[in-house]
């Protein structure tokens, strides 16, 4: 256990409390309870553990490779998906298998638990299925126009938003096909419900972000991103949407009248593709990971953006702290309390930091 304390600007204290290496690149990581983690790697292995290497347990694998992992709210079950087309449920307490579901497709890339933990949705190729926490099928959607890229439950658990070629669709957990479709010329990649559910945000292949005003169905499409928008994350208070595109983390302010007409703020620190962004739960820190092997930590809510030089030149905020990893950052996760940050990279290294 290393205790390197880094201080860049004095506003954050970041301390590495554990570090280990898994068998392959970390595809997804999530905290189960306390400092206990679940992770899936590119080989398909599913891991559970905390602290040092000796505490880690290999609990099973998806042949062909791992694609998705999601911990049930409450932390009793871990769901995993992979290239073998199965959705697997594991007991977080001991790593035993609770259920294995054959989805009928060979690509299970996204898993999302209903916020109350009673059901989970997963992508199965071009379809989305919904299962009970016991793995019993509840419903399956019609085929989308392409393999489904992302899914997200509306915070009240009433429906699921899906992203695929042709835009965003809403599904009700039990019915068949999409119930409502927000057409988009192009391909949607990443979804995020604002916690207050006023907006649904969607990052797209054509380097745009779509804001859907949930109540009216009106849309706002934001252009001018440097590259496809791969990842996004809302702050818990629903004010900030962080989006990752190219080497930029771009922050939109959705407070009051919303993002329309507002100039977003650029968060600077990465010099390679930003692969993942995650807001600290109930907190003010935004973490981003990049192909440059860096984690950048920002506290944009505490710091004033630098004034623009001109109208074309957006306001910027520099990272408060940056951590260098061995490989490209592939996965990020905060504890529900926001005190710990887990970071996985392409080399298979998994590190846990305390952020205060």
């Amino acid at each position: 256990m290393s205790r390197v304390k880094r201080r860049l600007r004095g506003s954050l204290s970041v301390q590495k409390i554990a570090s280990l290496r898994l068998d392959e690149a970390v595809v997804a990581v999530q905290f189960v309870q306390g400092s206990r983690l679940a992770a899936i790697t590119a080989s398909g292995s599913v891991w559970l553990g905390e602290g040092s290497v000796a505490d880690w347990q290999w609990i099973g694998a998806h042949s062909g490779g791992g694609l998705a992992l999601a911990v049930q709210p409450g932390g009793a079950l871990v769901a995993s998906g992979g290239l073998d087309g199965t959705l697997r449920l594991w007991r977080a307490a001991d790593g035993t298998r609770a259920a294995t579901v054959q989805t009928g497709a060979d690509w299970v890339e996204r898993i999302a638990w209903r916020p109350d933990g009673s059901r989970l949705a997963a992508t199965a190729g071009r379809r989305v299925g919904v299962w009970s926490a016991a793995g019993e099928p509840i419903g399956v959607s019609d085929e989308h126009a392409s393999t489904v890229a992302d899914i997200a439950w509306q915070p009240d658990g009433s429906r699921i938003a899906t992203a695929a070629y042709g835009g965003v669709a809403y599904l009700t957990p039990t019915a068949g096909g999409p119930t409502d479709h927000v057409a988009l010329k192009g391909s949607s990649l990443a979804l995020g419900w604002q916690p207050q559910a006023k907006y649904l945000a969607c990052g797209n292949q054509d380097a745009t972000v779509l804001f859907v005003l949930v109540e009216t169905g009106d849309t706002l499409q934001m252009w001018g991103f440097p590259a496809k928008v791969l990842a996004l994350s809302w702050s818990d208070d629903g004010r900030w949407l962080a989006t990752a595109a190219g080497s930029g983390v771009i922050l939109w302010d959705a407070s009051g009248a919303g993002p329309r007409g507002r100039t977003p703020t650029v968060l600077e620190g990465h010099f390679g593709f930003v692969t993942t962004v995650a807001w600290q739960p109930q907190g003010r820190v935004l973490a981003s990971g990049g192909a440059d092997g860096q984690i950048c930590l920002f506290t944009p809510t505490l710091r004033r953006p630098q004034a623009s030089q001109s109208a074309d030149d957006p306001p910027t905020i520099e990272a408060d702290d940056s951590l260098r990893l061995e490989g490209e950052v592939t996965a990020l996760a905060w504890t529900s309390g926001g005190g710990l940050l887990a970071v996985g990279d392409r080399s298979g290294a998994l590190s846990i930091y305390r952020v205060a």
Partner: protein
Amino acid sequence: MSQSEAPPSAPVFPSTDTVPVTVLTGFLGAGKTTLLNRILTEQHGRRIAVIENEFGEVGVDHELVIGAEEEIFEMNNGCICCTVRGDLIRILGTLMKRRDRFDAILIETTGLADPGPVAQTFFVDDQMQEKLRLDGIVTLVDARHVIDQLDHSEETAQQIAFADVILINKVDLVEPEWLDAIEAKIKRMNAAAKIHRTRDAAIDLAHVLDVGGFNLERALEVDPAFMEPEYPFEWGGVFDLPAGGAVLELDPGPDPTMAMVIVPLAAEIGADAGAQLAAATERAVLSFSDDERTVRTGGSLHPGDAHWQLALDRTPLRFAISAPGGGRVAVFTEHHPDEFSLRFTALERRLTPLAEHAYKPDHEHDEEVTSVGIEVAGDVDGEKLNAWLRDLLATKGVDLYRMKGVLAIRGEPRRYVFQGVHMLLDHRPDRPWGDTPRANRMIFIGRDLDRQALTEGFRACLV
């Protein structure tokens, strides 16, 4: 819907070591899987990932085979013909997250796949561009069926047009003369591809892997000179007309009309008629692009720049060549004289040409997909060229499959290389010209290309 601009951010640093991607195309049964298995066997020391779009008759025995289903995404980026393969973006994105780098990636497409979106994926998606490089498109054709497939499927023509390397496979199952015909036809469609004849897809893998088909440096290797120019006429001959002119007689032939140009030449003593004919060719090409002047039997023609159109609807077919003082002329005819028993007589004697040449005609091809090579010495004006290319890609981008070339731009001491797929162009300065004469070499491969318009359009950009 309202729009708002997100700000630009710092450039993404391109990675120096990108993984080469080879795309195998060809109809089912052409031998893609056989070639794939050969590559995997012979390159067993290398870490190769295979993306298979089709499960063929022969299985691929390899640790890393990922099945894919063609998902074509239209991009909403203002480029009307820009489509990419969403399935490849997704699968390659996942592969690129693995700890160990791959040495190579092979993509086997379905027999019916359009290679355009596959190639465009590597230009349009920033993440793909950062980590991968499209090395080449290898197209296999079945020697027994390719001609028939070209008649019936758009896809076969596209796969040939996009290819960097074409393997005419199963050569043991057809006659050698047939192979020559196939090869000639393929060459007319795609003059830039390297063509190999194979049996059981057996080939030195150096011809298939690391071919640098999309590598700008190798755009320098483009050599359109092997493509003999094409002409609007099939034959030309030099005659000395006696004072009083001559009579042109012919019989009806396969066409109801015959176009002709009679270029007057200087009748210098000792002038080489062959050289004179060659020198008159360019002038004849220009005349052939002028409006036609129709002449019926019994009418008269005279040397000059006129583009004569002989109407062959009434027999006997007799035309007067009016040349009161006589003189040397070069006659260029749309069809070969033998097809119409065409003959010149004067003073009861048949005239024999002092020199003659059969030209490669441009109207004989039935292929819609062709290659147009342009080679011109001198400099081009950068601004004019940009405007021309912009207009060309906007209007013909859909039909332009591949293009590559080397340009000499005025004021630029270095060679300028470019290559492209449909409307997407890659270009950059390359090594200096030095003492090498400055010249422009280009090749366009596409559907319904207008050779003359392309050549003239480019020539108009010359300084």
